[in-house]
């Protein structure tokens, strides 16, 4: 038996519930609108130009980006650094990238074969060289590539040849010298050239293969033992990505890295002319 008072209170609760329900609903819809606006508002401010660049270009491109933005105030440059192979995979999987700068021709060729870049706008914009570095605190340095096979060098940092250009250059140099089999067991694989540099700088490895430009960033921690001549010159290609959302800006950025102003910045970090 439910008393009259009971029935009234049941109705009362039902009304309250329905009021609360619509009220919550209203709040939720307002809130989701606010959240969506907050999440996506950044994109509306300026046109974004996403540049995926090889890890070895990190410092130079960080200085280039504001220079480009000063000339194109309506464009905001987003920089994305990683091993060239990793960048290629991101683009191949549909990452919204506008410009791709790789540290070797092999990676860019793969991108071109898959139709990921605008081949007619591809160009080489800087050159680099491969060096062997050792920790500055360490005792002595190898005089030649043959020395790395000696037991004194227990660990050698090398970029992973499957995805990191510097590793690919290193492997071909070592193969040519007939030392790959001897040095591969000592190899500490790096995800990109900067990781190899970091391993040497921390003294976790006895030597490492990096670009001359990377070695130049940490003169207080690493020293260059010698330059390892590569069969082919190390040339960095750059190209607009075929699916670039911002095709005009992508082309203008590629043109920009060839200007004297940009080349001066690249030279400051040790990059040579192509």
């Amino acid at each position, binding site marked *: 038996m439910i008393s009259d008072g009971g029935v009234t209170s049941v109705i009362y609760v039902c009304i309250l519930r329905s009021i609360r329900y619509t009220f919550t609903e209203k709040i939720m819809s307002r809130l989701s609108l606010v959240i969506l606006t907050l999440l996506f508002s950044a994109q509306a401010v300026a046109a974004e130009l996403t540049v995926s660049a090889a890890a070895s270009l990190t410092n130079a491109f960080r200085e280039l980006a504001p220079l480009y933005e000063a000339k194109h105030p309506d464009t905001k440059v987003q920089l994305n650094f990683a*091993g060239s*192979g*990793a960048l*290629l*995979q991101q683009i*191949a999987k549909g990452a919204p990238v506008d410009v791709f700068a790789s540290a070797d021709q092999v990676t860019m060729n*793969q991108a071109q074969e898959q139709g990921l870049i605008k081949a007619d706008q591809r160009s080489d914009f800087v050159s680099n060289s491969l060096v062997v570095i050792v920790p500055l*605190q360490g005792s002595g340095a190898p005089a030649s590539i043959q020395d790395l096979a000696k037991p004194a060098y227990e*660990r050698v940092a090398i970029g*992973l040849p*499957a*995805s990191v250009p510097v590793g690919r250059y290193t492997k071909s140099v070592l193969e040519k010298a007939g030392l790959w089999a001897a040095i591969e067991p000592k*190899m*500490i*694989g*790096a*995800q990109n050239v900067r990781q190899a540099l970091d391993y040497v700088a*921390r*003294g*976790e490895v006895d030597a490492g293969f990096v670009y001359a430009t990377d070695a130049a960033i940490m003169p207080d921690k690493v020293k260059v033992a010698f330059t390892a001549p590569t069969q082919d010159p190390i040339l960095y290609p750059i190209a607009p990505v075929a699916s670039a959302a911002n095709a005009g800006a992508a082309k203008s950025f590629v043109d920009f890295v060839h200007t004297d102003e940009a080349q001066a910045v690249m030279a400051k970090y040790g990059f040579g002319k192509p």
Partner: protein
Amino acid sequence: MADAWIPLALTLKVAGWATLLNLIFGVALGYLLARTRFPGRDLLDAILTLPMVMPPTVLGYYLLVLLGRNGAFGAWLQSTFGINLIFTWQGAVLAAAIVAFPLTFKSARAAFEVVEPQYEQAARVLRIGEMAIFFRVTLPLAWRGILAGLLLAFARAAGEFGATLMVAGSIPGKTQTLSIAVYEAVQAGQDDLANFLVLVTSLTCIVVLLVAGRLVPGRVPGQS
């Protein structure tokens, strides 16, 4: 594809050792914090729980700086015992064990806290030694909670990526666990290998969860 079994075996080895370390230290510290009171107990609890909330890369960096050749602890290990942990599978075990530690520690502490002290007091009345009480009374009563924590720790250790990559690198057959092998296969564009590795990982996880379900049933036998 035979390559995929090497990272799998290595992952099981690393996760197995990490779980064993967790069993020893997680249970010991869980018991200590459940049963004793001392100044700084809450602080110690917070520190021991840190790996659960801190990004693995932060842990990895701590470990790299501490255990590296030039690190405070690493230099001592190297000069005293000739032990070096960076870029070794033992280093991967340490990273995985620390990341998974809070899962065991928290479960063990909670499990010990719900053990009725009367059982232990009864054992004491029967003049059973404290050590024997722990192994014959307290531990068996807390065991299920601990086991659940250990299984979670095993799964977490098997999936460890960030800290492991920083401390142990990615050396095939030595420190390249499944999660790192997947990452590298994707970076190198070897989608076939990545697909296979992902499948192996998923199946392994399902097996672990099924085994966990068997070992830790919803109800305790003997009680209804």
